[in-house]
């Protein structure tokens, strides 16, 4: 399995409509370069990409995140309403100047493409068109946290103010 890499070089766009059921993405600078992944599709809600579509996709995924700071754990896959429609996002783990590794799998073993097709479940209407389905994960750029500034800095300030005993150090 090839590991995709999100970095300053790119890409920002990952094909999610693929005939595989597992993908690994190494994310450089989670929280510093990238905030989250967001699922985008060219299908409208009338063509199946409704809020329930995003809920079905989210329910069909298992995402783990591994980073140097914390144990491997399930990453949050969130479906949130927004004024322009629903949004499915995948978290990238704690803020880090180095890297996290995201592994995305389908729970049922079907391919991502099958999961998308099945979850779209579009009723054929005059308002559907017939362009090929596209589904992409977009790496959303990080805001609000300076590159390479550790989130530990404030903790360090707090500790510095507290008295601490260095006497036992080698």
């Amino acid at each position, binding site marked *: 399995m*090839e*590991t*995709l*890499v999100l*970095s*300053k*070089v*790119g890409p920002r766009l990952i094909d999610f409509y693929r005939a595989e059921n597992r993908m*690994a993405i*190494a994310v*450089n600078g989670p929280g510093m370069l990238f905030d989250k992944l967001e699922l985008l599709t060219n299908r409208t809600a009338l063509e199946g990409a409704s809020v329930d579509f995003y809920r079905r996709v989210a329910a069909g995924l298992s995402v783990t995140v*591994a*980073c*140097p*700071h*914390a*144990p*491997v754990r399930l990453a949050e896959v969130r479906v949130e309403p927004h004024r322009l429609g629903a949004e499915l996002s995948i978290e990238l783990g704690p803020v*880090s*100047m*180095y*890297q*996290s*590794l995201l592994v995305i799998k389908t729970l049922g073993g079907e391919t991502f493409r099958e999961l998308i097709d099945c979850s779209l479940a579009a009723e054929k209407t005059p308002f559907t068109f017939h362009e090929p389905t596209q589904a992409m994960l977009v790496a959303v750029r990080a805001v609000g946290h*300076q*590159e*390479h*500034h*550790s989130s*530990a*800095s404030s*903790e*360090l*300030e707090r*500790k*510095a103010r507290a008295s*601490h*005993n*260095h*006497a*036992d*150090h*080698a």
Partner: protein
Amino acid sequence: MSIRKSAADLTDDEIAKFLEAVLILKTIEVAPGFSAYDRFVALHGAVMGVLTPDSGGETVNFGHGNIGFLPWHRQYLRSFEKALSDALGEQVAIPYWDWADDIGAANRLFTPDFLGSLRWGSARDLSDGVLRATVPTAERPAWWPDGVSGFRVDDLLEEGRGEALERGSMEADWPPQLPWLNALVSVNQRIDGRHPLWVFWAIIEQGIAQLSQTHNAGHRFVGGHMGGMFSPNDPVFWMHHANVDRLWAQWQQLRLDNGLSANLRETYPDPAEASPFDGRVAPEGHKIGDAMWPWIGSTPGYSSASVSSAVRERLPAFAERVRVEDVLDTDAIGVSYQAP
């Protein structure tokens, strides 16, 4: 001349010498309770955000996120190597972690006799070797320095992980394949006509799909303290970066050998050249003529904003002024790499 060897090729005596020098550095107190080793660790966190006389209130990362990643860490290793040698009273060379040699890493480097074991899953205290926080008397080697009970992470630098060195979160996504590393050291891709160092730097610091297992992935692979801004807390940091530097030196030499660069200066982009990735010229400290903080001589007006005031007060001061161009030639700075 410092001859850096693969860590897997070190003799028992060379391993002992390196570890002894590290532990002696831990015993040299430069501030109350704060060691000469800790001072180098602090510097790595401090370089993340430096206010300079010319930065207009914005912080500059002198060591990461752009092409200066390579020369800054070359100089950092050089300074640390000198400190190790001074501590031991004889020449000590930093070995390199040959990423592609997973057998050597498993059988030699990450063993109780050298750096201690790696661990799968969540980060936990190191459970074997001389880098544990407390090493039982019966397990201490003959060279063990007096008055030392173990290798402890300073509480200003432990990033919530405690005073015992931690590793963990290791995954199977390692090691890199040698053919891809060979492709990296010969990469000559010019994006939109830009200098190929941009490509080499981006891949070796952050990785790319075809070769994702490079610098950042190595920090993640080891995990624990290696995953934070004070990653040099784990001595494997120095070997990891020695390998980065070795690959950069190979890339430079191949350019000279193949007539792709007329001289070492030409292996580095012109300071006016914009990055093919963000369209900006390299930031302060990353251009060929720039001095690299903290090696800025007596120039006033520099201060780190990325560490606490307590850490800031304990940073090392260097009298020398070192520019990017001063470290392009490994021979000139007295460093060579022995092939594995």
